[in-house]
Structure formats: structure tokens, C-alpha cells
């Protein structure tokens, strides 16, 4: 059983922010009036919070205003907003923000899919590979066989490996963080290679969670300097996921003949700019 002071102590911050209901506000107020210990905590809060919000406390160094944009000024004009990048799998270029589906069933098709990573890998782009453990290992084996050193790329912060281990909400946050980190590290563009297949571990939160993840990924990537290819293993992915996830949540599909606008993509927000010439 918590003492009255312990209970009140937990509420003082919310009391200060006026985030308590009126009954609890009154209870805290009443207790604080009669308890010197809790009152000193609240007095300290009020004083400290009042002081640190003062904008004069941390003045901007002289001249910083003009230096603040120096990293943007250093960008070559043409480089600053990447509009299209080579796909790597086919000879097409694709717009930034594209979320593409690539179905594979043979090893040769898998290896072709991994080529998506190569155009900027180790240069000015950052690559993220995501999926179940077996797929991540397979992608890195293919990269190694093609002369890349995944361990070194990870160390140089040119490659991020994200394991599929959590529900969509957490996964999308982890993906967002990885992209932010890559851009903060100076990457000009991010390539994201997702892998969906049924490995040894089950899907972290079921099939509907995969659909949620795909939908959230489309929204997240829409205007980022980023292109996403989702490789679906048609040998192991259930039919419903192939259709609802593979076909309905990706605006473009990568076929052997090239990149096509996906006619099954179910988005009210698809625009002409997302289509490939």
C-alpha cells in the first residue's frame, strides 16, 4: 500500500500540467497544503520548470543563424532533392517514395532482387534490409558472393540489418528511426529491401499485422528520399497475404519485363507522379 505522499508524488507532475481530473486535482491540492514534504517537491517543480523555459537561458551563439543552413548549402543543387533512382533489378529508374512488390520463387530471382541494393551501396546511399532471419542471412550471402562485405558495410554505417521481431507499430518506428539515422549520417538516399516469407519463426503478430505494416510503410515512405522493394517468397507466403499485402499495398510491381504500375494497388492517394514512364 502506497503512502499518501508516495501517491501524491506520482501525481505532482500531472498536477502541474493540469492533466488530472478535477477530483484528483482537488485531492492533490488538499494534500499539498497540509504536507510540507510534497509542497517542497511541487515548489521545486514550479521554480525549475519556470526557469528552464526562459528562452534567454540558452542564447544562440552569434552568427549561428547563417551557419545553420551550411549543410544544405553544401549540397550540390541537383543532389538535394532526389527524384528518381536506378532500380538495379531491371534497367528502370523509379521515383523516390515508391513502394514496390517483387515476387520470387527461384534462387536466381532472389539474387536478382538483391541487386536492388547495389547502385549506391557503399557510396552515397544507405541500404536497409529487413525481414525474417533466414532471408536476412540469404541476402547477405548473395551480397558477399557479389563482392560486397556486409559486415564492413554495417560497420561503416552504409547498411542496416533490421530483424522482423515485433508488431507493425513498433516495426514502423524502428524503420523510421533507421531511415532518420541514415539521413542524419549523410546518406543522400535510402534503399529499403523488405523480405516477406515464412521462416522458422512465426510472423510476430499474424497476417493482418503484415498488412498493417505494409500500409504504414507506404505512408511512411511516400515522400522520403527512399525507395522500398518488398520481396515476397511465393513458395511460403499464404495466398491471402500475396493478394492483400503483395498486390494491394504496393504502387509499383517489378516484373521480368520491367517496372509496371500495379493495377491492384488500393490507394485513394495514387497520383500520376508515382507512375513510371
Amino acid at each position, binding site marked *: 500500500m502506497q503512502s499518501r505522499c508516495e501517491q501524491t508524488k506520482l501525481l505532482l507532475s500531472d498536477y502541474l500540467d493540469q492533466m488530472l481530473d478535477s477530483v484528483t486535482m482537488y485531492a492533490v491540492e488538499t494534500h499539498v497544503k497540509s504536507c510540507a514534504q510534497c*509542497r517542497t*517537491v511541487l515548489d521545486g517543480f514550479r521554480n525549475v520548470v519556470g*526557469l528552464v*523555459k526562459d528562452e534567454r537561458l540558452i542564447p544562440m551563439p552569434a552568427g549561428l543563424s547563417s551557419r545553420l543552413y551550411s549543410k544544405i548549402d553544401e549540397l550540390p543543387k541537383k543532389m538535394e532533392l532526389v527524384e528518381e533512382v536506378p532500380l538495379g533489378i531491371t534497367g528502370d529508374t523509379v521515383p523516390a517514395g515508391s513502394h514496390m512488390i517483387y515476387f520470387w520463387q527461384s534462387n536466381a530471382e532472389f539474387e536478382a532482387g538483391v541487386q536492388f541494393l547495389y547502385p549506391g551501396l557503399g557510396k552515397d546511399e544507405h541500404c536497409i534490409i529487413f525481414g525474417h532471419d533466414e532471408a536476412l542471412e540469404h541476402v547477405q550471402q548473395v551480397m558477399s558472393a557479389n563482392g560486397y562485405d556486409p559486415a564492413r558495410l554495417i560497420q561503416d554505417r552504409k547498411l542496416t540489418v533490421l530483424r522482423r521481431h515485433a508488431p507493425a507499430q513498433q516495426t514502423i518506428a524502428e524503420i523510421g528511426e533507421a531511415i532518420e539515422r541514415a539521413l542524419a549520417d549523410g546518406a543522400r538516399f535510402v534503399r529499403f529491401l523488405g523480405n516477406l516469407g515464412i521462416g522458422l519463426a512465426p510472423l510476430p503478430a499474424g497476417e493482418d499485422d503484415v498488412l498493417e505494416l505494409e500500409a504504414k510503410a507506404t505512408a511512411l515512405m511516400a515522400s522520403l528520399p527512399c525507395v522500398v522493394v518488398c520481396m515476397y517468397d511465393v513458395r511460403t507466403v499464404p495466398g491471402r497475404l500475396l493478394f492483400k499485402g503483395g498486390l494491394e499495398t504496393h504502387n509499383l510491381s517489378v516484373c521480368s519485363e520491367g517496372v509496371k504500375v500495379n493495377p491492384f494497388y488500393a490507394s485513394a492517394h495514387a497520383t500520376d507522379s508515382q507512375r513510371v514512364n
Partner: protein
Amino acid sequence: MSATAPRRNEVNQDSLPRVRAGDREGFRQLVAPHEPMIYRAAWSLSEGQESAIELSQQAVLLAWRDFGRCNSSESIRQRLAEKVIAAARAGHRKSDAAVPSEYVPRHFEAWQDLPEAVARTAEFRADLHRALTALPYEWREAFVLRDMLSFTVTECAEILQLNVELARQLISNARLQVRDELATATRQQSVGGCQ
């Protein structure tokens, strides 16, 4: 207190396409009112002035690169704060130490209010920075957003991608610890732990 920065500076509908098309001047005009906020956030999350400047520049670069995602209804101030957090996290090494779930405050005989004038001294700045550095990083982010930048608790939760309950708890813990750290620095008379 000084005049507060604009609370919400929604992206002007007319300037959005221009800035998206690469208009740097338009971008500067949008960011300019928030420059002090960017620096305050950066200073609070970094180790010193030089790294704060670097972090501010990095955050502005991130905001520029990501500007395409900004829509007309959202606050550019919040978007810029998100970028400072993201840039700071990119450079932050996570500690292996477990983050405590709560903080037990010390008890003081009475709280001697620190006057506003004290808060603008270099000594207090240094004390505050030490207090911030002593916080677990998650608590530090929450405190900086809520109390130093005056975002609402809901906005803090959005920026930190937490639920509101957790954000409230982090803010509460951080306030308790910062209060104690500053109390020590300013020689408040401690009489032990809170009952």
C-alpha cells in the same frame, strides 16, 4: 519572461510546393522563427556548444531532406523538434544501464526559489547542463521537449513516438531528478529521502 516563439507555424499552402521544389530561401523563411528553439534543443541534448551547433545544422539538413513529408496542417515547429531528436539519437550511444522506472526524490526542509536573474547566469547554465546530462537519455528528451521547449504532453508523446501515459511518466521522473540536481547545485538544505 521573453516573448514566446510562435506556437504553431503551419506550413503556408503557397510556400509548400515552392519549398518542395527546392526553394532554399523559402525553407529558411519557414525555419527562421524556430532557430532559437532548434539550438536550445540541440544544446540540451548534446555535450557542449560545438556539438550543439553541429547537431542544429544536422537537424536542419534532415528537415530539408524530409520536407516533402510536411503537410499544410502540421506544425513546422514540431517537425523541427522531431529532427533535432532524430539527429541527436543518431549520434547518441545507448547506455547499457537499465533505465529505472521511477525516481525517488530527496526531501528538502523548504524550497528556496531561485530567482529568474540566477537562471541567466553561466553558472546556472552549467548546472542545468550537468543536471540534464545526469538524466537517463529517455527522461532527458522528455524534459527538454516539455519543459525547455514547452511542447504539450501530447506533442511530446508524438515526437518521441510514445503513448501519452509513458510520456507523462518520463516527464515526471525527469522533473524530480532535475529538481534534485539543481537543488544540490544551488545548496538547498536536504533532509533525506521523500516518505
